[in-house]
């Protein structure tokens, strides 16, 4: 666990840092021209690094387009000022919105396929822009253009020093505050989930593609602002925005510490100031610079901030002795699960629907004639009927490759059937996406716990509550400053605590999922899925890898959920749990339904016994 400051200290520390920053700005604004030039460039690259870290660190989008977006801002400012004589402060919003919009378009085009191809498309974007800037007449070719001069302060503010320095440092501060706000908002865990565990974020109802594109647009907007600022530095020419500059910005981010607020700024300061301050043979200087890159990153892969954290953790350990450690996992004794106990737990206090007589007309899920194949492959599901009655626990079993997970993906909206209908709570939804299913009350968990491993259990459960925080994406930009956000934040923390205590994992709330045992990860997933109050819950192998004690615990959770009216689908490999737990069972083999009905009846089915139970 990372050492954390007490909550109450944070505002004090924040204002202290702000004061120190103002003192620095005052000093820089009165410094020599050399200092001012250095601070201006460092602040501009600081903004760029912060904006790139926003997408690279939080969303895993390694953009090489930032130099291009930066160029757009700088050229637009210079051209609008020189040729059209616009007011610089009219240009600023035009520049921000314009570059932000370009970012949205670029994101929408290149994020269809993410990962490396995103980097490639953004790379080509920068390349083409700089080539055009070099070849076209009105951009001044290779020589570039002379930028505007930033207006001086009015006389009553002259004491503050050089206005442009204040402007660029305020701009950097604003960019940093936006990132800080996002980080402190409940959107942050959602972003990391989109980065590391996309299906999990989608199943929680987050519009993952739109969030990614929107974040990239915001990042582009900040890069455009950096471009506006940069125009005041003197000359705007193509070589200042080459694709290597994009790579350099990424270097600043990684060197400082990716996905840290301050790290990218430190990286930017280092990369811009080091070459200017070290005055030796230029070749030796570059060699030294390269050696520093290698050395820092090899010894401290987390960058400067990684190093700081390492030191801080060691100091904390020295002082606090044995700091707060993770709770001890209560490992169940090895042995055989007593299925009778599981059955007793699962059915305790609830009227067994199977004995209730007659078919209820209302189904939580009703699939008819489902056909599905991956691409042109064989049919994974062939004319499958699958219905789950409201308020029951429905087992879905079958050997590996029988199509269980595919069926669940079809029901939860990750896949769409080639033929057949899917009704959820009476609504035809087979053509709708995951988010619509979430709106109809469908929650799900995944095989092998798809979670954000670097976040705590609490933060992971927050991801599940995405739909419970209205207008989260927009409000996250100023989260700590909004009274409504404070209120929602408190309510959210309560819901998270409730969900974790509901599954009995309260002790693990602050532990990173990476450090928690497998059973806790499963429970965290379950808590995230239950937290927002779904009506239908689909659990993909929730019992896999659990110790016997944990299986009984899980059974009691399912029983509680059922008692509160939630319909549950449980996918399981191991028949003995399923028949103990479930009211009804469907057996799938090779993409077809072998048997379906009340658990006891299915269990007696000869074909099931022969094919599946081996009896």
């Amino acid at each position: 666990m990372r050492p954390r400051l007490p909550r109450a200290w944070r505002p004090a520390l924040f204002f202290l840092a702000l004061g120190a920053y103002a003192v620095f700005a005052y000093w820089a604004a009165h410094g020599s021209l050399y200092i001012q030039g250095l601070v201006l460039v460092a602040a501009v690259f600081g903004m760029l690094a912060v904006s790139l870290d926003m997408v690279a660190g939080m969303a895993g989008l390694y953009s090489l387009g930032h130099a291009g977006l930066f160029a757009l801002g700088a050229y637009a400012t210079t051209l609008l000022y020189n040729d059209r004589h616009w007011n610089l402060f009219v240009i600023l919003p035009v520049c921000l919105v314009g570059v932000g919009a370009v970012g949205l378009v670029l994101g929408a085009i290149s994020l269809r396929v993410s990962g490396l191809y995103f980097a490639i498309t953004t790379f080509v974007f920068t390349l083409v822009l700089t080539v055009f800037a070099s070849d076209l007449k009105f951009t001044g070719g290779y020589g570039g253009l002379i930028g505007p001069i930033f207006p001086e302060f009015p006389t009553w503010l002259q004491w503050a020093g050089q206005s442009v320095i204040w402007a660029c440092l305020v701009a950097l501060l604003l960019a940093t505050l936006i990132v800080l706000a996002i980080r402190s908002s409940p959107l942050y865990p959602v972003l990391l989930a989109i980065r590391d565990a996309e299906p999990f974020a989608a199943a929680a109802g987050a519009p993952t593609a739109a969030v990614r594109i929107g974040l990239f647009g915001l990042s582009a907007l900040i890069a455009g602002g950096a471009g506006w600022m940069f125009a005041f530095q003197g000359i705007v020419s193509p070589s200042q925005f080459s694709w290597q500059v994009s790579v350099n910005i990424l270097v600043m981010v990684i060197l400082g510490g990716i996905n840290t607020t301050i790290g990218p700024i430190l990286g930017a300061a280092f990369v811009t100031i080091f070459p200017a301050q070290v005055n030796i043979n230029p070749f030796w200087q570059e060699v030294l610079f390269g050696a520093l890159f290698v050395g820092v990153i090899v010894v401290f892969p987390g960058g400067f901030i990684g190093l700081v954290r390492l030191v801080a953790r060691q100091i904390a350990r020295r002082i606090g002795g044995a700091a707060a450690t993770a709770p001890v996992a209560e490992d169940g004794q090895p042995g055989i699960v007593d299925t009778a106990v599981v059955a007793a737990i699962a059915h305790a206090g609830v009227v067994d629907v199977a004995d209730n007589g007659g078919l209820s007309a209302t189904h939580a899920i009703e699939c008819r004639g489902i056909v599905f194949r991956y691409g042109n492959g064989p049919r994974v599901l062939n004319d499958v009927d699958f219905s789950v009655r409201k308020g029951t626990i429905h087992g879905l079993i079958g050997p590996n490759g029988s199509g269980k997970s595919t069926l669940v993906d079809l029901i939860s909206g990750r896949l769409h059937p080639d033929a057949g209908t899917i009704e959820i709570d009476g609504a035809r939804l087979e053509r709708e996406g995951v988010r619509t299913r979430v709106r109809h009350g469908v929650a799900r968990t995944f095989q092998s716990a798809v979670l954000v491993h670097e976040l705590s259990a609490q933060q992971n459960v927050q991801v599940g509550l995405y739909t419970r925080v209205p207008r989260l994406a927009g409000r996250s930009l100023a989260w700590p400053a909004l009274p409504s956000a404070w209120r929602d934040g408190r309510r959210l923390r309560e819901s998270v605590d409730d969900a974790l205590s509901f599954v009995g994992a309260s002790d693990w709330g602050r532990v990173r999922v990476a450090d928690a045992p497998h059973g806790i990860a499963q429970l965290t997933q379950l808590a995230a899925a239950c937290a927002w109050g779904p009506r239908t819950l689909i659990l993909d192998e929730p019992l896999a890898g659990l110790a016997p004690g944990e299986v009984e615990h899980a059974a009691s959770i399912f029983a509680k959920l059922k008692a509160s009216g939630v319909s549950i689908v449980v996918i399981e490999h191991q028949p003995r749990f399923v028949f103990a737990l479930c009211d009804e069972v469907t057996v799938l083999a090779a993409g077809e339904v072998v048997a379906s009905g009340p658990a006891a009846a299915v269990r007696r089915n000869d074909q099931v016994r022969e094919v599946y139970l081996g009896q």
Partner: protein
Amino acid sequence: MLQVLLSGLAIGSIYGLVGMGFAIAFYVTRVINFAEGQLLMVGVMVAAWIARTGVNPWLAVVLGIAAAAAVGAVTYLVAVRPVLAFDRFSFAWLVSTLGVALILENGAALIWGPTSRSFPSLLAGTSVHVGGATLTVQELMTICVALGAAAAFELYRRRTLLGKLGMAIAHDPEMATAIGANTVMVAASAFALAGAFAGLAGVLIGPITYSNPYLGDTYGIAGFVALMIGGTARPVAAMFGGLLLGVLGEAANKLINTQASDWFPFVVVVVILLALPEGLLSLVNPSRRLLRRRGSRASPAGAPG
């Protein structure tokens, strides 16, 4: 037209070799070695330096390629492996390989000076006429050697155990280790081979460009773009990407204007990427592509269970 095609192929095969260098290292380690262009420069500089001492130029060329391969392997061991050992999915290698590029480029400038020096011309002067076009023997050899190297690599990758092991390691290094593969050795060899490809490109282009510490930038970018055109599914695709880039650049120079080679190939690349985000060669087998696209809609977590 034929002249454009042939000249384009000659320069394109250089881009293709560097691109394959990028691709081979990426293929095994999922790392883009940003010092790949500088490895080309190492090949040129070392070959030129050895040839100046009076050694047989052919031997100098071989030693140049060997030097590039050695530097490639060292790059992996010093700058890439420690970073991947910390976090296999981090992008920190971007910083460390760029650091290596800086060291190599400026180190070469320190040792041999920042200006251009001579390079032994192996097949001076002679040229051949094909149809209405003229091609120097050097250019002809470049095309043949590049295509030969690409074909040899592809055969090696598909047919030998070591080649298949490379695929396995790319897919899942932990699993590959579990079956007893020496992942470090294979990855270091991949970097060495990638260095050899760059060194080969270097000694082929050396007689035209002479030896100069800043060669790495120009050809590094071209090779990187070749990789992007070809896509990363198979290293040999980068060769096709390079050839295409070369021909497009030549065509733009001849048919539009002399500056057009700066932008025309990239506009084509953008159009290609917009139409086929997985690279041009994904067209080769449309049915497989379709299958992959449909399949990719399901996450690993949602794979058929």
